[in-house]
């Protein structure tokens, strides 16, 4: 299911011009990371994909649906969105009902809903916490609950807004694994992140935004190697990319495997 954004402009009621002339195509099954400085418009952009925000001008299509013509509730069948702050999203009395809410409301058959719920709980490593109130869990695990409740809806497109914020190494690895599984299932994954090392290790395409516009868009190595342009949007290249550059590597590297490969040359 292709996402097609054409000449998108968005101005908040306060007058802040958050998006200025965004045109972007994301093909079905792509894994895209969006990086860029605070206030660049990253969250504003992804909120257009499920109709939470409507363009001031321009169009957003998700498959054959123009987001202007469909309710947020309907868009939710195609686009799942995991908020930056899980507390904005969780409301049920326990993890099990929280994760079940989405699939049950999409009108799946009971069997399919059960399957989806179980699958999402397993993927998020929450199977032993279904009876717990989400607010009795640490922020780390609340994030996993938010994530599982969206995964359970089995949408073609999944958006993660800052999934690794405040997460430790084990939890970041857990999230990376969820993204890997979604990739294998052919889902489109769009992730906003400031965690540039996480971005480098898990995404093939990177979009850098600055002041409501797209600054760079391309293969991860091509984008992440452009330190001077990235600096204008307050992004440092990944640690190993910087190190490779300092050591005079001819190729841009972004993970340990690539780094060690170049080092052996």
């Amino acid at each position: 299911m292709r996402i097609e954004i054409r000449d998108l402009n968005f101005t908040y009621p306060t007058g802040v011009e958050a998006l200025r002339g965004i045109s972007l195509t994301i093909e079905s099954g792509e894994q895209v990371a969006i990086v860029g400085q605070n206030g660049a418009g990253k969250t504003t952009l992804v909120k257009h994909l499920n109709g939470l925000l409507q363009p001031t001008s321009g169009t957003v299509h998700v498959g054959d649906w123009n987001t202007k013509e469909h309710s947020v509730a309907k868009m939710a069948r195609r686009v799942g969105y995991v908020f930056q702050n899980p507390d904005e999203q969780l409301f049920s009395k326990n993890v099990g009902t929280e994760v079940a809410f989405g699939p049950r409301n999409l009108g799946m058959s009971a069997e399919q809903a059960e399957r989806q719920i179980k699958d999402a709980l397993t993927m998020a490593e929450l199977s032993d916490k279904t009876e717990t109130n989400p607010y009795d869990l640490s922020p780390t695990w609340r994030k996993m609950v938010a994530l599982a409740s969206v995964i359970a809806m089995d949408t073609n497109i999944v958006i993660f807004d800052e999934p690794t914020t405040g997460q430790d190494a084990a939890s970041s690895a857990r999230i990376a694994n969820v993204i890997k599984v979604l990739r294998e299932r052919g889902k489109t994954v769009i992730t906003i992140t400031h965690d540039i090392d996480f971005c480098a290790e898990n995404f093939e395409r990177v979009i850098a935004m600055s002041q409501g516009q797209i600054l760079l868009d391309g293969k991860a190595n091509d984008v992440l190697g452009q330190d001077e342009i990235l600096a204008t949007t307050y992004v440092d290249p990944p640690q190993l990319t910087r190190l490779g550059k300092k050591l005079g590597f001819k190729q841009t590297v972004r993970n340990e495997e690539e780094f060690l490969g170049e080092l052996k040359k």
Partner: protein
Amino acid sequence: MAIIELKNVSYKYPLTDSPALKNINLQVNEGEFVALIGPNGAGKSTLCYTIAGFVPHFFKGEISGTVEVAGSESSKSNLHEWVLNVGLAFQNPFNQISGAKYTVFEELAFGLENIGVPRDEMIQRVNDAMKLTGISDLADRSPYSLSGGQQQRVALTSILVMQPKVLVLDEPTSQMDPIGTREVFGVIRAMAERGMTVLMAEHKVEWIANFADRVVALHDGEILLEGTPQDVLTSDLLVEKAFGISRYTSVARKAKELGLWKGNRLPVTLEEAMDGFAR
């Protein structure tokens, strides 16, 4: 001289069975910048709350041992006196914004209003603090209309403006862009140079390695390791206990096994990594 001193501190949150902190002994000197690392659930936030007086005064629960900051003992003080010495920036900036103010400027003045700072001084201090953290252009925006990273800068500034002796920061850059993170670490380092004592819970090891004086590694409510960033962040124990480590340390460890690392000690910063690989 030690400005923070914890002796045999153990703590249990209300209605829980297992302690969040176990027998913590910690001294922090005036003007020192100490980073707290550890997996989620290790007790980093709880230790921050303890030094900031929220444990036990706000969260209640059972505490034992003594917590001293700037010569006063927590158990013998009130939270409203304690906050004059110790400022805490919460992990989630949203929890910190008062909700009572329409602009960032007013939000930053809120604490000063409450301790009766004269108007002229208040305006001056708010302006200076905004300049320091690079948020002067946000002065007239609503605190709620900001992005996560911008809110986090506001939350930090609202503490700095109070000029506490001790600054306790719970993952203050978690929602910030990468260069913004580095800048804020620089600001915090500068505050330490001016004599403010800083205790910061943080996962971003690269910047801890560059800016902190000392690292305390917490695991399961206990202090596992303590020492210079170099010593602590290259310890094999961190890998064993699933701590996050810098990519420089991790790749050098692998390169070492392949005979491709020439440095003496494993690196924690870009400079150390360059040095060891370039030999």
